[in-house]
């Protein structure tokens, strides 16, 4: 193991404090950019914070450490949450003072995660449905080399409408990978409206169970529950784990919560002010 690696072991209040800063970043970044996806970024905050600050074996000072754990944001449109968390965590190629250049010409903070601009990212994503296959390939290769790395793939609930997700979902238990964790950000809203109106995906947990994944359902905003689920995944041998995280789209900003409008629309300056007041 890398010498400089150490477990962060943050307390839940500390994690909640980070989550609040990340939410403020998300709102500010997307407001400055005048476009972007606030709802699905805000719903994923606790999960991404927990992974980067408390769970994954990573060292921001050595982002290419070969035995590191890796996170793939398959729902790439939630890039702001990942950018903010990586900046908070101290990745030099995701500079905190540049977060507000999101989506601008010349910014490393591209509209969707792009490894050409931020090499510490583990995948370039944005075209939905592909991250789980990438994670499976990484998990297989890493297992072949007997590395300790674990691979976490965050999927959107709308995203699992993509057929490729189920190709990968079928393949991962077949190959008995237990170093792969899928996390479904089940916020129930996609671009065109409520998931149940566009293309129902329920029952989500039952589907993953039927595909032979060890499946856990949690409140995706509860740090203790996320920690417990990730620990359960780590203890599960011989098959992958799917964490179905029930979340609230736009979580933390009252007028964005459960509001399909804020899937892919930036807040106005006034809305931003209101949101930041709520996130104080």
């Amino acid at each position: 193991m890398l010498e400089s690696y150490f477990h962060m072991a943050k307390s839940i209040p500390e994690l909640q404090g980070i989550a609040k800063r990340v939410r403020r970043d998300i709102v500010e970044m997307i407001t400055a950019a005048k476009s972007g996806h606030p709802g699905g970024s805000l719903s994923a905050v606790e999960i991404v914070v927990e992974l980067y600050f408390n769970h994954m074996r990573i060292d921001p000072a050595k982002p290419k450490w070969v035995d590191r754990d890796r996170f793939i944001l398959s729902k790439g449109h939630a890039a702001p949450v990942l950018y903010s968390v990586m900046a908070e965590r101290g990745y030099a190629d995701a500079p905190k003072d540049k977060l507000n250049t999101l989506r601008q010409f010349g910014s490393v903070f591209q509209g969707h995660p792009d490894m050409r601009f931020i090499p510490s990212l583990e995948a370039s994503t944005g075209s939905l449905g592909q991250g789980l296959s990438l994670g499976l390939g990484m998990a297989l290769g890493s297992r072949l080399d007997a590395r300790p790395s674990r691979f976490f793939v965050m999927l959107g609930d709308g995203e699992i409408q993509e057929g490729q997700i189920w190709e990968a979902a079928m393949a991962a238990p077949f190959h008995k990978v237990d170093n792969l964790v899928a996390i479904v950000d089940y916020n129930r809203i996609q671009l065109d409206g409520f998931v149940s109106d566009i293309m129902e995906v329920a029952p989500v947990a039952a589907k993953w169970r039927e595909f032979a994944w060890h499946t856990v359902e949690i409140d995706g905003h509860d740090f203790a529950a996320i920690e417990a689920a990730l620990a359960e995944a780590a203890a599960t041998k011989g098959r992958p784990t799917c964490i179905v995280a029930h979340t609230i789209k736009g979580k933390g900003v009252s007028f964005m919560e459960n509001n399909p409008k804020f899937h892919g629309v930036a807040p106005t300056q006034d809305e931003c002010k209101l949101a930041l007041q709520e996130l104080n």
Partner: protein
Amino acid sequence: MPAQINTAKPKFEIKMGPSTREAFGRTVVELGRENKDVVVVDADLSKSTMTTYFAKEFPDRFFSCGIAEANMVGVGAGLAMVGKIPFIASFSVFVMNKGFEQMRIGAAYGRSNLKVVGTHSGITIGEDGPSQMSIEEISLACSLAGFVVMAPADENAAKALVRAAAAYNGPVFIRCGRPKAPVVYGTDQKFEIGKSIELAAGGDITLIANGLLVAQALLAADLLEAEGVSARVIDMHTVKPLDRDAIARAAAETGAIVVAEEHLVDGGLGVRVAQAVAESNPCVMEFVGIHDRYAESGNPDEMLEKYGLAARDIAAAARKALARKR
């Protein structure tokens, strides 16, 4: 560095050798023995793509994805991202059409070290018919930014180019065929990605081909020679990056070019060569390929003849070009 020149035999004779897919299957096993990082991913066609040899010798390094090409491409890209050298294989028509978006995101845009091998390319797969025939994949592969795209002519070419692909750091597509391939090269022939091979010297016209049509081009050159026409024959085994120097020289020195490929003429080798010609030394050109249609069941020779890809068709195109040149 100039293209390597073989002294052409007085007459090219068809002598069948193993298929290029067979050569791929054998070579990837050799690569597996030499490098433990070489892995193979397949989608329920290993007995046809010939990755079955690899699966038998290295079961731990062979990953079956079932009939799910999109996932196969993503898994391959993921394997590359943790340092493996993955060869993924299926029929060209399936891996390219069903895995195109995954190649775009995972391998081209993501620039992973993925090696994609499409077998059963073109219409010479014969009896299975058009749903299994790939006549678009060179065009599609070339539209993946950063990909190297190759189409070997015979066993030795395939062996060498599969090795070159493994040694190259970046995404590669290799087009292989189903039927036995006429022998064009000896075992001593050297191949380099992006460096075409001049198989016959000639000053009146240049015949540029790849894959199975290299042998047909050589036969066509003999037909033309009997008519007093000296045809240069070039194997453009790498479609991307294109050997623009050889093309510019051929255009300048022979003033007429025929491009022959077992592929739709829309967007394949021909249009790429034409672009290079237009940008260097414009000259008359003719194109031998499949014209805006699908083929049918039948044996390889019947396919080449009916769809206008045989030596006589290349010779006819050459005569047409020569008439325009004069």
